[in-house]
């Protein structure tokens, strides 16, 4: 399978998939909590949280990457303690690429989930309460099934965004083959050297195929679930 890709190219693809997978999986529960808070709760600083979540969407990715470096770098305000206490290092590791991808994809994920939560009729949750379901049970048996299409859409959107993340990643964790060289970084690197166009073209095709597959999958899953929960 790998003979039509050089080891370097293959490593970039595998790394990108790994980075995107973990970025999506880890940010799912956090994204759901933030989306729920923004959709349903009233609290002090709600607009601040909303702004903070959306900031990576508007800031130049290089700025986000630099801020991540300042915060989660080895000498960063948070990074030094993570290293000291948990041995968790982000700088110039694949975990850092995952963190950068997660931060950049977070607004898209939260947005999709928030819209889904806002579309749930609170009257249904009220009805579940009168039938004896406590708040956590209402969430698990009514709210969660109804927002599942939104969660899946958010996750796939985040995965696709993570696959394509470039600016913040290269700023935060650089472009080390096998370590932090994701698909976009690799394409960029191949285009910088003479004769690298072939490699770049192969990776471009792979990027297109993965993006397309993700999109089709998300459409298909969302449709199947929407059919199920529309009550038809």
């Amino acid at each position: 399978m790998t003979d039509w890709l050089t080891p370097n190219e293959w490593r970039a693809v595998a790394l990108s998939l790994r980075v995107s997978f973990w970025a999506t999986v880890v940010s799912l529960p956090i994204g759901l909590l933030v989306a729920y808070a923004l959709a349903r709760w009233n609290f002090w600083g709600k607009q601040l949280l909303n702004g903070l979540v959306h900031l990576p969407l508007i800031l130049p990715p290089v700025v986000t990457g630099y801020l991540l470096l300042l915060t989660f770098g080895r000498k960063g305000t948070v990074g030094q303690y993570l290293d000291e206490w948990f041995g968790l290092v982000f700088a110039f590791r694949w975990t850092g690429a995952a963190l950068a991808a997660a931060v950049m994809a977070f607004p898209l994920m939260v947005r999709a989930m928030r819209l889904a939560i806002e579309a749930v009729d609170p009257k249904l949750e009220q009805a579940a309460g009168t039938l004896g379901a406590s708040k956590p049970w209402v969430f698990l048996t009514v709210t969660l099934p109804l927002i599942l299409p939104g969660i899946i859409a958010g996750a796939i959107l985040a995965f696709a965004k993570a696959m394509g993340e470039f600016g913040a990643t290269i700023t935060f964790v650089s472009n080390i083959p096998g370590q932090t060289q994701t698909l976009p970084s690799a394409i960029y690197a191949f285009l910088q050297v003479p004769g690298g166009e072939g490699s770049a073209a192969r990776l471009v095709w792979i990027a297109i195929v993965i993006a397309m597959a993700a999109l089709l999958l998300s459409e298909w899953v969302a449709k199947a679930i929407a059919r199920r929960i529309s009550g038809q």
Partner: protein
Amino acid sequence: MSLQVSLKHRFAGFDLDVAFEAPSGVTALFGRSGSGKTTVINAVAGLLRPDHGLVTSNGITLLDRSRGIELPPHQRRVGYVFQDSRLFPHLTVRQNLLYGRWFAPKEPGVSLDRIVELLGIAPLLSRRPGALSGGEKQRVAIGRAILSNPRLLALDEPLAALDEARKAEILPYLERLRDELHLPILYVSHAMAEVARLANTVVLMEAGRVAAAGPTADILSDPDAAPGLGLREAGALLTATVAAQDEDGLTRLDCAAGPLWLPRIAAPLGTDLRIRILAQDVMLATTRPEGISALNILSTTVRDIRHGTGPGTLVRLDAHGETILARITRRSAEALALAPGKPVFTVLKAVSVAQESVGVKRT
């Protein structure tokens, strides 16, 4: 089996201050839109937090603000049937029906089979709510509430969103529930026909207050309650028994007030019926009318006379222990020199059957 309710709540521009007791059977909360009926059952079910309130069901306190007792909705076990049914769209009818079972205390209650049979929803079980008609949705919602094993049922105008045909489809099921399950039922409605048919007790609400409360027949024939009921709705509610099917197509009913003839009622002899005689369908005469087309003429005695602010007068009549209400003009009342104790003949222009069966089994 009884429910005590006492609530005070202040909204912007609206004051609720009610207290009533609901014995077992159907208690109708009757009143115009905006009189506070739904607010009352929301407070009973825990969906609204009143400023002051006490709700006890069979001696169990659901709410007592003065003692800081406020059970959350899921611990109150008030089976609530909403106007808009609120079935869970992602679950099948069967899953909807069994939803409350997960959380209900594990004590023997009504079985799924019994409810499915009682509500006639067996063919719907594997369907999803989106594929049901309005009437079917409401029957499933009623079944779902009952299967959650509630202390009491609260129905908020369950028929309001339905057309007449669907209403007629559901009412018999509600009658069966009332007669066969021994649950107190709070029934919010502004349709007198439903109340006359279903309710054992009526709580008449006006602008956030209880205007009158008591057994249905007493309230419907109470001249004092008539303005609140709507003058067109005031009238007597009698229990009668099918006594004979005459050959010319009429059915004879026997009640304490005397025999009544109605166009054929397809019910076996001995069936108990609830019949309504609206006050505006009653004429009075001081001598037995002759040469008149009306079949149903009862000899009665005037109990009391209530003059309204307009030209109308309500006369309450005693018919061998039953009460009949007549709405006539003040001029007629004076011309006939009506006074309490005076015997008069009561001519019934129309009698309607409020309900196929009163569900009281003769023993």
